[in-house]
Each structure stands twice: as structure tokens, then as C-alpha cells.
């Protein structure tokens, strides 16, 4: 029994890393038909495969088309498994994220990779796309009551917009965790602008976020206690 599940997990992982959507779908369906746990299959099959994809991308073995195709394979499996994940408080969604590329900037390849990482990790992602008016970030963070705001910029001239958004969001909801990224940014700059986090690549961005989730939880608990 356990062996069979391991086999299916391996199928899911390989289907993702080898961007074979059909193979992933078949394995995902088998997980359900044979009565295995859907959540386990998502985390240790699909997401584990994608983690490997992240590594291959970092090592310049995979490039953007491969990563996007792997993501499609993953989504194929996710669609089948997701409706069967039991909502258990200990497995609760990690939080909601608003993400976008700032106004005047169409470079969204990197942003899409970061978005992907968040989705796979179980965050609810509100993607505002590219060339996003600065006010839109502020509005969306407030209206969706998101825990994270992620902004991307690839041009030195457009990245300045991030600082404005950070200032405005801070005024309205100081608890939102803000992350910034994109080639011209540095951790130093992110800090100076008052962002909570910076990520040099997509896997790194997710790690940062997960680190912050911890402190977010504590914050919510504090708030609940304080009433």
C-alpha cells in the first residue's frame, strides 16, 4: 500500500519535472481512485517536483519555457486533486498575496515565476499582471485583506514606484508584509525603502515569505489576544 503511494508520488514528481501533463493527470487520478490522501500528493508529489524544477532553473539546466511547461503539468494535477483536499485547520492556507509588476514596466517573466512558487505553496494569489498603476496595489491589498504584497520591477526607472506604494500601504495597514524583487533591486535598497523582504530569485522569494508567515501568525495571535 505504502509502496504504491510512493510510486504515485514519484510519478507526480517526475511528471512535473519532465513537463508531462498527461502523466501527472493519470497519477493524480490514481491517487484519488485508490483512496490516497490528496493533500499529501500535492505537497510531496507535485510541489516536490516543482521544487526540483526550481533547482534546475537555478542551475541553468532549465530555462523559462521549461519552467512554465512544468507549471502547466503541475496545474493539471492540482485541478484534479484540489477539490479533494480536506480542510484541516493545521493545513490551513498560508495566506493571501497580491503580486504585480509596477507601472511603466512590462517585464513580467520573473514575476510570473514568483507567482507560481506562491501558488504551489498553497497561497491564494491575486495577480494584478504587469504595468500595474501604483494605486491599484494599495487598493487591492486593502480590499482583499492580503497578508503579502509582492512587487516586481526590472527597470531602474520604474522601481521607484515601489517606494511610494510601500509608504501608502504602511499608512493604511502596517501589518502587511511587503516583498520586492527584480534584477535592478538589492536587499539593501529593499530595506531602505521599508520593505520586509527581498528575493533574488523565485525559490528564494518563497523561502523569505515562508519565514515571514511565522511572524505573521504570531502577529495575528497577539492581535486576537489583545482584542
Amino acid at each position, binding site marked *: 500500500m505504502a509502496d504504491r503511494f510512493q510510486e504515485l508520488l514519484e510519478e507526480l514528481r517526475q511528471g512535473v519535472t519532465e*513537463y508531462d501533463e498527461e502523466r501527472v493527470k493519470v497519477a493524480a487520478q490514481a491517487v484519488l481512485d485508490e483512496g490516497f490522501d490528496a493533500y499529501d500528493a500535492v505537497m510531496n508529489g507535485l510541489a516536490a517536483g516543482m521544487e526540483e524544477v526550481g533547482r534546475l532553473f537555478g542551475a*541553468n539546466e*532549465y*530555462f*523559462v*519555457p*521549461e519552467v*512554465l*511547461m512544468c507549471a*502547466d503539468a503541475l496545474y493539471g494535477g492540482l485541478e484534479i486533486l484540489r477539490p479533494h483536499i480536506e480542510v484541516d485547520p493545521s493545513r490551513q492556507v498560508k495566506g493571501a498575496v497580491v503580486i504585480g509588476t509596477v*507601472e*511603466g*514596466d*512590462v517585464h*513580467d*517573466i520573473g514575476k*510570473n515565476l514568483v507567482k507560481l512558487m506562491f501558488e504551489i505553496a498553497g497561497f491564494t494569489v491575486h495577480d494584478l499582471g*504587469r*504595468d500595474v498603476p501604483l494605486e491599484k496595489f494599495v487598493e487591492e491589498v486593502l480590499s482583499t485583506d492580503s497578508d503579502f504584497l509582492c512587487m516586481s520591477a526590472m*527597470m*531602474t*526607472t*520604474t522601481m521607484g514606484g515601489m517606494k511610494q506604494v510601500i509608504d501608502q500601504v504602511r499608512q493604511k495597514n502596517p501589518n502587511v508584509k511587503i516583498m520586492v524583487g527584480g534584477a*535592478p533591486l538589492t536587499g539593501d535598497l529593499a530595506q531602505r525603502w521599508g520593505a520586509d523582504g527581498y528575493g533574488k530569485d523565485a525559490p528564494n522569494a518563497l523561502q523569505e515569505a515562508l519565514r515571514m508567515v511565522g511572524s505573521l501568525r504570531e502577529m495575528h495571535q497577539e492581535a486576537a489576544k489583545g482584542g
Partner: protein
Amino acid sequence: MATATKTARERVMALFARERQTPVPVFSGMGNVTVYGLEDAGIGFAQVHGDAEAMARAAASSYERFGYEAVVVPFDLGVEAEAMGRTLNTYASSDGILYPTVQNKLPATADNFQVPADLELRGRIPLVAQAIRLVKERLGEQVAVGSYVLGPFTLAGQVLELDQLLKLAGKDQTQMHVILERAGEVAAREAEAYRAAGADFVTVREMGAASDILSPRMFRNLIQPHLKEVFAQVGGPTVLHICGSTQNIVEMMADCGATAVSVDQKNDLAASRATLGPEKLLFGNLDPYKVLVQGTPEQVREAVRNCVAAGADAVWPGCDIWPTVPAENMQAMMDASREQA
């Protein structure tokens, strides 16, 4: 001094004929408008893209003020997309420098990419051609006039949704080749229209195919054949420019049929020179932002010297000159090459 009597145009054209120049020419085939040029033309950045006269004057300014050795129009990457029926946002209400962006890309299928029969008459292609004519009329004897078009992959990515196009590149090579062949036709015909208007050289910009995005293997199978087609169809001196990571594809770039190859600051120019050998024309690779905009004049000088020492046949910035470049840095860039000679 023999060089003093040569015009900028003579120097650049001689270089394209493979006669190395001393001092090493400083120019580029990408946008080189500055805020001073916009001031000279009395126009805002958002408006300059739609006005041939202002475009010509703003572009000429980098030569007139600093001695930059080429005048290049246009300044944005949306000309092809517009000619293919897409709309651009030029951020008309913003007074900062925001580059135009394509608003309504189409789903990435070959059916959605059809070359209009009257391509040369569409969008701003006639306007850019007119700007070339104006510059040519006024300064054509003194300075090289350049223009640029997008490479097939980058061009397709401005018309079709890029993430879908990237997936198609991995999944359906047959359809991808159809799209790239059509995009190559657009690039070649547009380039020929600019040459007919008087452009001395045309640069093909294929930034979407850098190794930050596509694997070198995909570059070989998918990108290179179509670049070859384009260069086979365009007469006169041509340059292939790719910004981003190019170390692993520079040899293939040099084998596409362009007169010269240009790379950006991510490339180790000395290593590329070693790979390509002494004959190939190799341009590069001044960092247009960290050095030209943010550096001190002394840092600019040093960077120019490094380009030359690494084996650049012409000092080219890695991308468009960023309009807010300080005047003293433009000057330092021009002086450095002359001082070194």
C-alpha cells in the same frame, strides 16, 4: 591627425567595412535620446514617439551636443506591434520617462500572427521612415544614421502573449516556426523600409532570446535559423544585439549573418573576443544604467577603457541610453575613447 578629418559617418561606415578605427568609435544602434535632446526638440518623452520632426531633432541631439557617432530612431519597442494592429500606452499624462508598452496582446497562435500586405504603410513605420529621412537630409553627410527592428522572437512576444509564446516554444516547434518565419518577414521588410528611407545601418534586437530566458539549445534550434533568414534579406551593414546573458550563445550570434554582434554588460567581452577570434566585429558593452547614469565621469572613462581593452571594435552601451544620463557622463564617454587613442 588623419582621424580629425574623418567624419563620424566615415569612421562608422569604414568600421562596418571591417577597417578598425582609432580612436574606437562610440555609438550604438539602439535608442540614444537624452533629456537634453527632448529639451532641444521641445517635446516630452511620451509625445516624441508620435512626431517625426521631434523624433529626428531629439535623436540628432546626442550627436550635436556630445559628438555621439550615430543618430538613431525610434526610441521604443512598440513599432512592430502597432503595425500589427496592437495599441500602445505611451503614458501621455506622465511627465517622467516611461517607455511605451503594448496593451492588448493576442493569444499565442500562428493564426493570430498574420503579416499585413501593406505592412510598410501601417502604424508608425512611415513615421520612423520619415524621421530617418529628416535626419539624413540634415546630417547625413556627417554622421551615421541608424534604426532598429525587433528580432523574430522578441517581435512575436510584443504581439502575442509572451508566457504562452514561451510555452509554445517548448511544446509546439512546428507552430513556433510558422510564427517566427512570419515575424522574420515583418522584421526584414521593416528594416528594408528604413534602409530605403536612408538608414546607413540597421540593428536587430533579439533581447527576448537571451539565455536568461531561453536555453542555448533552443537558441540554436528555434531562434538562430530565423535570425539567419532576416539577415539574409536585409542589405547594408547590420548588427545583431542581444542584451542579457549571452556568453553561451555569442558564437551562434556571430554566425547569423549580421555585419557585427553586440552584447551587454553581462557578457565577458574579453572571453567573447577570444571565442570569436580577431576578425569578427564585436561591439559592447557599457552598462547603460549603473555606469552611464549612476557612475561618476571617472567611472565612465574607466568603463570605456575596459571595453576597448577587452577587444570592442566599437563602444556600445548594453541597451538604450537611458534618457536621464548626466551630460558630463555622455561627455566622459566620448572623451575617454579619444584620450585613449
